């Protein structure tokens, strides 16, 4: 038994400092992001969520230039991106896709510029892969309180507007008729999403953060129709995938090619997608049985 456990959990896994930090950060991030993901999927705003993360990459790479922590860069630019989408009309269903695409293009352009300047001026030539693909084992322990604070703020904001947000996500017209300020609620949601996405960028890198946002939530919504239940299932899937992902990344150091760990974000993404496919298959089977 212990031999099996040793084979799965390589020795030193739980005593290793960077691993402990990685586990803590990925658990908190998964909880926050997957909960917001449920609303993102219900609202049909997967594209916006992905775009905010990509735009966040511009912030992360810009932060390296000025010498502040990447989390603030991720957050500020994602917030600015959310504002820009709101302004160009990302809220209206007809023009939403195009508006999101335009803002995303401009944001990625900025990321290209900043990453270029990073390698030129700040001498950080590895910045491209760190910012875009993440490096969860390189997070310092001082970041944990910040991660928890930002995550708690995002969850509190969503909890405060939960009912009107859900109503306006399911039916915009009905919510407006009931006196919900749809535009304001949508804006607040985008702000919380920006915070969550910034956290997610830190854990899995900017362009992979969409996996934690969409995968667990979409899987959960295949299994249950109740939004509250979906949040719980989604959080469970996300936390499990990211912790197992960190574990596998740690183990992979001994896999081929020798002496070269596989990226944690790779495992996290693959696990969330597998969870979604399993949930989807399970849902269609039970539906057929019924």
């Amino acid at each position, binding site marked *: 038994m212990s031999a099996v456990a040793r084979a799965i959990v390589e020795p030193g896994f739980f005593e290793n400092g960077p691993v402990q930090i990685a586990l803590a950060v990925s658990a908190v991030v998964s909880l926050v992001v997957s909960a917001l993901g449920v609303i993102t999927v219900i609202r049909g705003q*997967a594209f916006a969520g992905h775009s905010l993360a990509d735009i966040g990459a511009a912030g992360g790479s810009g932060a390296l230039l000025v010498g502040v922590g990447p989390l603030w860069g991720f957050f500020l630019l994602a917030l600015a991106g959310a504002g820009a989408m709101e302004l160009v009309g990302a809220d209206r269903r007809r023009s939403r896709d195009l508006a999101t*695409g335009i*803002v995303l293009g401009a944001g990625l352009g900025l990321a290209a510029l900043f990453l270029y300047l990073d390698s030129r001026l700040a001498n950080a030539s590895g910045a491209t892969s760190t910012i875009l693909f993440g490096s969860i084992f390189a997070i310092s322990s001082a970041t944990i309180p910040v991660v928890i604070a930002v995550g708690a703020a995002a969850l509190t904001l969503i909890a405060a507007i939960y009912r009107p947000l859900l109503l306006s996500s399911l039916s915009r017209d009905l919510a407006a008729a009931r006196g919900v300020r749809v535009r304001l609620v949508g804006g607040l949601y985008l702000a919380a999403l920006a915070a969550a996405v910034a956290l997610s960028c830190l854990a899995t890198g900017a362009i992979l953060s969409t996996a934690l946002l969409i*995968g667990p939530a979409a899987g959960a919504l295949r299994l249950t129709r109740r939004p509250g239940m979906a949040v719980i299932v989604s959080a469970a899937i996300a936390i499990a995938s990211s912790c197992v992902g960190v574990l596998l990344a740690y183990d992979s150091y001994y896999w081929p090619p020798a002496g070269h760990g596989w990226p944690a974000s790779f495992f996290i993404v*693959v696990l969330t997608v597998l969870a979604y496919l399993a949930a989807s298959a399970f849902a269609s089977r039970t539906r057929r049985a019924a």
Partner: protein
Amino acid sequence: MFSGFMVNTWIVASVVAVLAGLVGFFVVLRGAAFAAHAVPNGSIAGAASAGLLGISVLAGLAVFSLLGAIAIAVLATRDRHDIAVALTLVLMLAVGALLLSFSSGYAPATYSLLFGEILGVSRAELGPTVGLALASLAVLAVLYRPLLLSSVLPEVSEARGIAALRIDLCFLVCVALVTTMTVPVVGTTLIFSLMVGPPGAARSLTKSPAAALVLSVMIALATVWLAIAAAYDLDLPVGFLVGVLAACAYAGGRGWATLRRGRAAVARA
């Protein structure tokens, strides 16, 4: 700016712009900006694996962007389109991240794959690129009417017996073809800007599909030419310029349309 190796760049970039303008018209019409972003962006896995396996980047991109297109079309029959796109995209990117980490070390190569490199077009790539361009033009010409119909009136199109899945797949394959030839110039991350900005601007300027197509191609060409000239002169990354110029083109188009509508209202009053 027009000497030697730069000539290749100008040719490939112009070919890419024409196709991006054409395909982009349908991207905007179908509201498929996310898919147009995902197929090229995910195909980075192809470029990375090409480096590892020692095959040409063009072949790697072709295979992966086609796989992405098929995965999106198939997944979208079971769940909502944006979720299918998001999951396909992250899966492909994750494989890309893994392969890039194996081929380790050379960071500038990763960068130019993602964001483009105007000095990276070799003579050997010229032939395949033009061939692919002609192939996609032929596909577009054949698909023009059913694609237009299914984009504007999906119900009518279904009623006429045009299968939604097949059309969606054909459309995504067009996006994949454009993706394949674009990497040496604009990079996987920003080709979609060209498929969104110029056609978006064209659509806000004219209602007629044919005029919008022509306008879209012209704006895309202007964007790319300006971006390459500026990248060459100012030594800036071409991806940055394409992304920002495409957004400016769209903003300009929207502004012009608003201005004209305002004037028309004044004239009527």
